[in-house]
């Protein structure tokens, strides 16, 4: 690993550290029992098997949407439709589970496949709009998420709603539920699927022809065009693949033991979280599980802290915000980086003289 990469890692850790320290300072100001709060935040997730299970469960949707966003952003398409794609994926999976009445084994597979398809179609809309009409994908994808939310809510209310519980669907049949893989927790088969998707995402981006075209286009579109790459095709494929993964994530999440009904009447925010994951993973899907672990741990810790102390859950939002700001601020620690590189360069000059 060269020194620049090493420094990037260091900077990432340092950003996280600073963000945590600032959060701790805030806790000291707002809490009557700051030490307990902070200890709970840090050690809470490790206290019981159930808590550890919660961390791992929370990772699953983050890995899915994070990988999807890594692929979309690698093509330099700032498509935020992952949020809506995930939501739609959940609804489609619920509809398949409830309406098709497929046997165990087949039911979750069909549900996840169709969820992936729905995600793909949905996330491609902003790309098509950009190509056909020149609408910037950032704006259109941001707004289209509300379309997904209200469409799903409409379908829930008119087609899937269980009148006895209100704004939720009928109970999902047992045949469609993803099996638990570790007893005493809710850790389910979706975790394995998420890890496979992260690895495949990496292979797709870095080892395949299409992935190469995609990164080339993302890094310099006019270079890609000059090289003979079909930009339109690349943009469409990248958004479609990102959408497949987002939709799949939504399906998997809904079929997990965590949910027994489709009850999402507001956006869950996994699409936004995906941007944090993508930033921490430096657009490499292989690192999304690590980034997801960090975020999931922090959130689980915060929710335990909120349950047992007087500090609210929102403190995590502050931590997240600071991390993102520091990681994307390129000039942060640049003086230090320069000194480190200069020192190395000088050392190698001296070596050259001796040799």
């Amino acid at each position: 690993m060269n020194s620049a990469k090493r420094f990037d890692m260091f900077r990432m850790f340092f950003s996280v550290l600073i963000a945590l320290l600032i959060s701790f300072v805030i806790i000291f100001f707002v809490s009557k029992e700051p030490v307990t709060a902070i200890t709970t935040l840090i050690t809470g997730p490790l206290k019981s098997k159930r808590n550890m299970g919660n961390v791992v469960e929370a990772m699953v949707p983050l890995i899915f949407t994070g990988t999807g966003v890594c692929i979309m952003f690698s093509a330099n398409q700032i498509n935020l439709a992952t949020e809506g794609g995930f939501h739609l994926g959940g609804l489609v999976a619920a509809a398949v589970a409830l309406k098709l009445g497929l046997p165990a084994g087949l039911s979750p597979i069909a549900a996840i496949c169709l969820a992936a398809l729905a995600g793909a179609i949905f996330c491609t809309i902003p790309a098509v709009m950009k190509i056909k009409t020149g609408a910037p994908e950032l704006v259109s994808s941001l707004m289209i998420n509300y379309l997904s939310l209200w469409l799903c809510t409409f379908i829930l209310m008119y087609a899937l709603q269980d009148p006895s519980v209100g704004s939720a669907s009928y109970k999902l049949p047992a045949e469609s539920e993803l099996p638990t893989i570790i007893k005493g927790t809710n850790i389910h088969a979706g975790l394995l699927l998420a890890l496979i998707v992260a690895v495949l995402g990496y292979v797709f981006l870095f080892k395949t022809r299409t992935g190469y075209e995609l990164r080339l286009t993302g890094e310099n579109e006019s270079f890609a065009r000059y090289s003979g790459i079909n930009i339109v095709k690349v943009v469409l494929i990248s958004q479609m693949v990102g959408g497949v993964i987002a939709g799949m994530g939504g399906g998997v999440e809904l079929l997990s033991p965590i949910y027994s009904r489709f009850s999402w009447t507001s956006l869950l925010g996994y699409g936004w979280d995906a941007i944090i994951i993508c930033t921490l993973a430096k657009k490499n899907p292989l690192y999304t599980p690590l980034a997801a672990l960090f975020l999931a741990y922090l959130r689980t810790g915060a929710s335990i802290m909120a349950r047992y102390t007087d500090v609210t859950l929102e403190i995590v939002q502050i931590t997240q915000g600071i991390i993102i700001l520091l990681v994307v601020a390129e000039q942060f620690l640049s003086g230090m980086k320069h000194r480190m590189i200069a020192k190395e360069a000088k050392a190698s000059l001296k070596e050259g003289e001796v040799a």
Partner: protein
Amino acid sequence: MACLDNKIVLQMNHIMKIYSNGVVANEDVSIELKKGEIHALLGENGAGKSTLMKVLFGIESPDEGQIFLNGQETTIRSPQDAINKGIGMVHQHFMLVPSLTVAENIILGVEPKKGGLFIDMEKAVQEAEVIAGKYNFDIDVRAKVEEIPVGIKQKVEILKALYRGADILILDEPTAVLTPQETDELFVQLEKLRDNGHTIIFISHKLDEIKRICDRATIMRSGRSMGTYEVKDISTEEMSRLMVGREVVLTFDKKPAAPSGVLMKVRELSVRNGQGVLKVDSLSFDLRGGEILGIAGVEGNGQSELIDSLTGLNKSYKGSICIKDTDIEKCSIKDIRELKVAHIPEDRMTSGCAGNLNILENMFSNQYTDPDYSGKILLKMKKIQERSEELIREYLVKCRSYKQNVGMLSGGNIQKVIVAREFSTGPDLIIANQPTRGVDVGAAEFIRRRLLEFRDAGCAVLLVSADLNEVFSLSDRLAVMYKGKFSGMFTDVAAVTEEELGQYMLGLKHQEEQEGVIYE
């Protein structure tokens, strides 16, 4: 000719500058400037000339070393600080506002005020005229910058620096965009400035120009100073040896061309740019295998638009372009590349490479679909790695490994990566637009030799270049482009003089009947 007195106005001692990508651009460089001299800063690209000047002009801060101005140690914190201290810089790419007048550009940022709030335009024009008159610059200060020729724009840049009180003037490759006539004029002005007591730093790698106008020269090579010499005491050969570290052959032994069949046929080609201005005006020509057709001309006379149409980047043209009997009107860029057409683009950073990707990734953008390097889905990484290592060796790319990002290489090495990529597919037709611009002498020679080798092997080469030496030494036929047309076409390149070419470039001369443009 000699300096007014031997007073040292500026000393830069033991300057070291390391960039954030770890490149040591200056390693213990010292330079000394006398009052009233034209001092050449000579070196290949990537030798550290520009970095040293950026340090002097306050754009970069040095990691080590001191600067003495008139004997006083000083730190230059920003370009504004440099200007306040009497240092002016004329960049290679002009920093002028095209929609403003010459006078407005000159006073920009230091405007004379009326009532402390409004710009006093009358006074501005007056002051601009005074300063132009003082240095004998014949300029209409009320003209808009967008309407004046390049040579005048350069004068405006110089006046801008003088108006701000520059005693030391840094000129970064000032002749790169000028015609021979404009260069002559510039030199007269520079000599006047020198006699006035100004100190001029003349950055260049054109040896003949340095011989003509400079008093002393500091030669740089890979971040070090190779010493300062009296120009009259050092030969061109010696200078180039110090610059590259070996003798450079300045002329090529060229076998006579053996042109074969026509590979590219262009008929009545007209191209308009985005603003609807006619840039290529019903141009017709043929290009045969085994020959180099050079296109000379002042930039902006339609060369870029011509190349964009020939390579498929621009699809909205009138007329026809046939490559090997295929009309390319309906062809995609990829289809054109599959006709074995290689293209060295004009601007390597905008369309020639992706700086954040590594050398390997940049070397395969035109051939990753080749069954040798990829299956239907997966890339054959091992084969690609081997091949890129081979190309790095063959094209003498200076780098740590193929994993290094292209953006971290010097300009010359980036160009070598591009050339390696384009040439490695075994092209039948090479379209080279400014193939050696901003490339060091060694690399330029290498690229030119390659072009000749391809021509000898029967390849057709279309060479667009602003470097007259290059078009002269390589071309078998030479066309001059002026306002979208060929103002001249020469089949006997050796019989054309630089002055004559300059007249065609400026549109002062125009051939009515042109020979050897098309073969039918």
